[in-house]
């Protein structure tokens, strides 16, 4: 495992390693492993090494590096980095070069992070296995016959396979947390609005949120602190109040004594693998020894979360992806078409893979005249009920604990021809997006077999509580497996 951000920064500043060596070693790992894993769609070899040399020159002048200077980061290929391809793992954008930086990229550049490359995803972030990519499936570093989860599977695999220290992904219904769980790392989906979405290729704008992957919880806190905050380019981004800002030192101390955590009875159902249940129970027992109080709570509309999500999300997909029309950018059949309508229809037929097609069609149907109130209107009503369920529970507890996924990583090809079975992969994660609250997946204390993660959720903008609770188990896990 690569060191933490703080450890790496210390190593740079006390000259026990150089930025160039770390970047060269990580690029060498990508070179040796990624032919099989397929986590990257593009690697920025020259640019990353050039930036590393500049930072080493800074150190040679006797200056110290800031915390994120020289930290090797990969970025989901749905987030724009100016001058680099931004494919969304789709034929539609195979030759598209980003014309500006996403806000998160701008902030990370200013902090001195080194971008190693762009990572694979399910096309336009639609999927739960990273098998829907136009550029081939990504494999799970823990078992290469299995999926890494999705849609940010390339990001998760790059960190789990030590091909990046940090990755930046996006989560619309679980696309950071589920792959983090299946690959054995930490994945954080912040509160909706905490991080600007400007420069993220939109899937479902009211649900999308950008967040980090890392081996350690404290690293996700450092990244969140860097990328969060109000952005004039995203009207839905939030101006954080002082009470909502992170206190990193307090997260590190992870004092969880007296915190109350809810166990929602609707999430601990038949169908959860016995190994997953056992691993979550072990985490709960360890929390109890740290002074955390557990109470059973109820989120009564949980069973309606996935059907609600699979109405609202495709509705937004069908409108967001209407921009890909073969006219202004991306794949175009302009020169092979007789009229304007045919440009649209032929470009979209050729550019979109099967899963975006399914969701565009479904979204078009649920928004069409005569069906709007039966589907979209109803789903918005249920979304409100789900949000109220969480509000009621958070009046009683600080956080909620659940499994992130009902099982460990499944085999490549196992679910790819059964869309409803694949959609149910999001069963424990979508409600978080529907309610707009933050969630994190953290590896359990199990170290046998395939990785298993547990999920914590808190109320809006209570990432301090979320990360403090997560860090408590992370500290114990780190001591258990690294000493």
């Amino acid at each position, binding site marked *: 495992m690569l060191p933490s951000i703080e450890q790496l920064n210390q190593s740079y500043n006390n000259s026990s390693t150089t930025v160039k060596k770390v970047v060269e070693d990580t690029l060498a790992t990508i070179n040796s492993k990624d032919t099989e894993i397929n986590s990257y769609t593009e690697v920025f070899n020259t640019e990353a090494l050039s930036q590393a040399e500049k930072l080493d020159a800074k150190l040679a002048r006797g200056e110290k590096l800031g915390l994120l200077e020289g930290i090797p980061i990969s970025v989901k290929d749905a987030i724009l980095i100016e001058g680099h391809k931004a494919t969304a793992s789709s034929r539609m954008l195979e030759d598209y070069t980003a014309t500006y930086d996403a806000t998160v990229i701008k902030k990370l550049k200013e902090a001195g992070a080194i971008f190693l490359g762009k990572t694979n995803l399910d096309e336009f972030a639609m999927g739960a296995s990273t098998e829907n990519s136009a550029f081939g499936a990504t494999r799970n570093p823990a078992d290469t016959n299995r999926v890494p989860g999705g849609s940010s599977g390339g990001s998760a695999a790059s960190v789990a396979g030590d091909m990046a220290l940090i990755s930046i992904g996006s989560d619309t219904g679980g696309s950071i947390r589920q792959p983090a769980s299946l690959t054995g790392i930490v994945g954080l989906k912040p509160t909706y609005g905490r991080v600007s979405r400007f420069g993220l290729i939109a899937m479902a704008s009211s649900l999308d949120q950008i967040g980090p992957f890392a081996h350690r919880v404290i690293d996700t806190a450092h990244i969140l602190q860097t990328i969060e905050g109000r952005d004039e380019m995203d009207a839905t981004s939030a101006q954080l109040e002082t009470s909502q800002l992170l206190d990193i030192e307090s997260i590190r101390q992870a004092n969880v004594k007296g915190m109350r955590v809810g166990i929602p009875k609707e999430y601990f159902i038949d169908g959860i693998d016995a190994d997953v249940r056992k691993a979550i129970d072990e985490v709960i027992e360890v929390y109890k020894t740290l002074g955390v109080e557990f109470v059973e709570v109820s989120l009564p509309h949980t069973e309606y979360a996935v059907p609600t999500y699979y109405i609202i999300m495709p509705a937004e997909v069908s409108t967001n992806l209407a921009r890909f029309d073969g006219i202004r950018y991306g794949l175009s059949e302009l020169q092979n078409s007789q009229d304007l309508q045919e440009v649209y229809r032929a470009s*979209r037929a050729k550019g979109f893979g099967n899963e975006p097609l399914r969701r565009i069609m479904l979204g078009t149907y649920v928004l069409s005249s005569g069906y709007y109130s039966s589907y979209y209107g109803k789903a918005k009503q249920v979304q409100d009920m789900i949000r109220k369920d969480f509000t009621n529970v958070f009046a009683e507890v600080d956080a909620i604990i659940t499994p992130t996924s009902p099982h460990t990583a499944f085999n490549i090809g196992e679910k790819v021809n059964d869309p409803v079975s694949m959609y149910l992969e999001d069963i424990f994660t979508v409600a978080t997006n529907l309610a707009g609250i933050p969630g994190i997946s953290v590896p359990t204390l199990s170290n046998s077999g395939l990785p298993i993660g547990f999920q914590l959720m808190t109320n809006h903008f209570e990432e301090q509580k979320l990360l403090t609770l997560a860090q408590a188990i992370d500290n114990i896990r780190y001591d258990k497996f690294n000493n």
Partner: protein
Amino acid sequence: MNYNVQDIAKLAHINLSSERNEMLNQDFGSILDYVNTLTSLDLQSQTIPTYHTQTLRQDLALDNNPRFSQNIKQNIIQEMPLVEEGYLVVKSVLKK
């Protein structure tokens, strides 16, 4: 549930091959059956919310260029499929 995937494809502006038509005919039924589980809920007393899950500020954006590099215009033009004398080429919108 009444649906015709060819009609929906027309609304979505996508040509459907016979293979994709068959795939969608097969998938649509099972997906709609699944999302129809919402019909079991009594929603008579619920209004359709017109707000987001959180209270967010909706400021008007200033009409300026605070962020983009100097060559943004050229970069955008480079991404266009067909350009003549700096203008985007499209098929005729109005029929003669």
